[in-house]
């Protein structure tokens, strides 16, 4: 995954890209990856 990430994203923007992925995951799965999309969004 890291190698693929490094191949797709310029080194200067890996931090931004990683956090964008995190944002996407948290928005789509606020309850965590194991929870369903309809699971509670409370932290």
């Amino acid at each position, binding site marked *: 995954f890291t190698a693929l990430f490094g191949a797709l994203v310029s080194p*200067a*923007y890996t*931090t*931004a890209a990683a*956090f*964008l992925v*995190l*944002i996407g995951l*948290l*928005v789509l799965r*606020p309850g965590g990856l194991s929870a369903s999309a309809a699971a509670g*969004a*409370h*932290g």
Partner: protein
Amino acid sequence: MSRPSMRRIALLPLGVAVLFAPSLLGGSASVYSAAVLIAILAVMSYGLDVIVSDLGEVSLGHTVFFAVGAYATALLSTRAGFGAWGTLAASIAISLVFAAVIGLVTLRLREFVFSLVTYAVAVVAMSLAANWAFLGGSDGVRGLPMLDLSFAGLSLTARTDRELWPYAFGMLVVAIYLVDRFRNSRLGAAAIMTHLNPRLATVGGIDPARVRLQVFLFSAPITATAGWLYAYQRAYVSVDILENYFLILMLTAVILVGRRQLLGPLLATALVLTQEKFFSFGGYVDKIVLGSVLVMVLAFFPQGLMGLARPLSRLFRMFRPAAKVVAESKPTASTSLEISK
């Protein structure tokens, strides 16, 4: 006359005192510099105050709106020749776009997850600002012109902090007025209801998601306007505007005096910056002091300094009954007359 109107009138003499405070405190360049910075960073904090105190959510990404205001101002004034009114309008408009996007993305998120996502947005913004040549990269954007709000033949310019102070004060007054109006509005009431009990708010006909978005859209331009003036004050904008220092300062300003205190963010910002400017311990120690203040308030004074008022008044009342008993035991003229009858 309504209570909010009376309160606003009572704030007038205080406002006049604050306006003339820098000149009364010596009028030196450092005093005016501190006063302008206090006003700018207090306005920045008022934007977050609405989200934290009224909506009950901790947004860790509000530095993004501060940066949007500053960068929009820097880029448009140096590369497109925009005047101050134009950069102000652009800062507000662009901050609204960002707030709409971030607000829609975080619509379903609450508490910890909401805070984490907003912090992730700030990290993305910092990474872009540091590396993207369009935003000046790590060098930032330099050479901003002086603030010029002249119109209709009226010259309104500011080269120094002394000349900038009336504009900073005016911006502060407008921000406080807007926050006060918000808290006395239906949106403000809806925000409180959404915060305290979202299910009950829904039963009462309030759409919590819509209220959250509207409050977000209300708060962002306030913080962005602070960034607008900050850019003119420094004449230079760089990625350090997205540093955690500004986030910690905003959070401290919101909670130090107490939640939903109209002058709370202003007083707290004044306290923190006065220590940094005039009682500095130097270097990183001031940042340690700021962080320590935040931790101590959260741990020991969760209601802020205003939370100390209740125990102090209780302490005062402990001594009052003794004085009352002594006063009541002394015979008055009327009681003497009744006894003699």
